[in-house]
């Protein structure tokens, strides 16, 4: 085709490196989601108390996360903090920035979830002697996570795709590792095609696990 001969063997030899990159990718995707969800719960709860300082700070976080490019957020974590004399690794910068980004989007998703829960659920739980922390942990949040399960999973897809931005600051996640591996043979197309396939498979595995979780743990109720 086009007088170009594809060299798949070169790619095959570098598969272990790509696999290592894929593990970094998966790690960042998973950790950034876990951190993101935790922060998002705090942001969403802070936002419920309208007019307070915490609520305003939460709004700023959410709007900045959603209205600037994720790559810019990564640059800020990497170069911005660097300029302040805080040098963090590219791994930490990418993880931190994507967690920041996830938290903004997830907080907005959770807000919808909170709004869907009626006031009587709070009254019922309080009247059984639960303090606010228990009301949230046993009654409100489990319901919020059920209603928002799909959009949360959707966000985890974005987290996975966003990890590829790590390449730009030299992190060897899947895209970065691919970039590095191809730079010796310049078989760019072959390498990135394999990387694309790997992303595709990882995405499907995450969706499969999500379906499993939903089927196994989130049945009943709503």
């Amino acid at each position, binding site marked *: 085709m086009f007088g170009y001969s594809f060299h798949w063997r070169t790619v095959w030899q570098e598969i272990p490196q790509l696999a290592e990159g894929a593990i970094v990718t998966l790690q960042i995707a998973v950790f950034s989601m876990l951190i993101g969800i935790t922060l998002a719960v705090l942001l969403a709860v802070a936002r419920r108390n309208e007019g307070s300082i915490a609520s305003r700070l939460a709004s700023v976080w959410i709007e900045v996360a959603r209205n600037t*490019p994720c790559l810019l957020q990564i640059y800020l974590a990497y*170069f911005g903090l660097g*300029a302040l004399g805080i040098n963090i690794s590219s791994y930490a910068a990418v993880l931190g920035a994507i967690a920041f980004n996830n938290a903004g989007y997830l907080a907005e998703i959770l807000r919808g979830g909170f709004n869907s829960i009626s006031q009587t659920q709070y009254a019922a739980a309080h009247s059984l002697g639960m303090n606010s922390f228990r009301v949230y942990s046993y009654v409100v949040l489990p319901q919020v996570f059920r209603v928002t399960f799909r959009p949360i999973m959707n966000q985890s897809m974005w987290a996975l795709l966003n990890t590829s931005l790590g390449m*730009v600051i030299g992190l060897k996640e899947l895209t970065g590792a691919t970039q590095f591996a191809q730079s010796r043979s310049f078989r760019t197309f072959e390498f*990135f095609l394999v990387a694309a396939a790997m992303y*595709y498979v990882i995405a499907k595995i995450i969706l499969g696990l999500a379906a499993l979780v939903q089927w196994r743990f989130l049945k009943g109720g709503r």
Partner: protein
Amino acid sequence: MSAYSGLSWSDLLFLLDGAGKTILLTALATLFGTVLGIALGWLRDSSRLVGWIVAPYVDVTRSVPLIIQFVLFNSFIAIAGYPLNPLWSGTIVLSSYMGVFTSEVVQAGLQAVRPELRRAGRSLGMGYWTEMRYVTAPLALRVVFPSWIGLVIGLTKDSALVGVIGYIELLRASQILINRTNEAILILLGAGLFYFIICYPISRYSQTLERKLKQ
């Protein structure tokens, strides 16, 4: 901008040029992507066969990082012997990306119009296109428009990735200047403000619109 910021006038012009390129690229991809998306969404809605045929394209576009789509397309056209300048390869990839997401919201919009209503239009003697023009399309538009605005915001931010294939839009320009001037924070905050000023008002507008249309 004077000595103490470490940024010169030419640096500022360089950034402004990048900002202009961000806008140009976003505008082109919005235009082509929307046209592609409407056509694709309509085809997917009206023909199950087309739905089947384009499903893998849609699925792959949504499951593979955009950055990789840029690199793959760029190296593919190089292999094929038709290299394009970064603006055009960026526009093509972003339009395809925008087209896929637009087709999804268009399809959802068309499906949100109840079949009874569509049949009612037809039974009043309207032809397919008349019915589409006066019944289905206006109703679908109410569902599609707020989501479409969301996609344009996404596109504005995603245009930042075209830097990887050598198109010096705002964020790539910022990165080049960061390496040269050590004014990382100032430059990044400036660039961030640029994106924010474009995206935030539009997203607020789309939220208000969505609330209004729901009533």
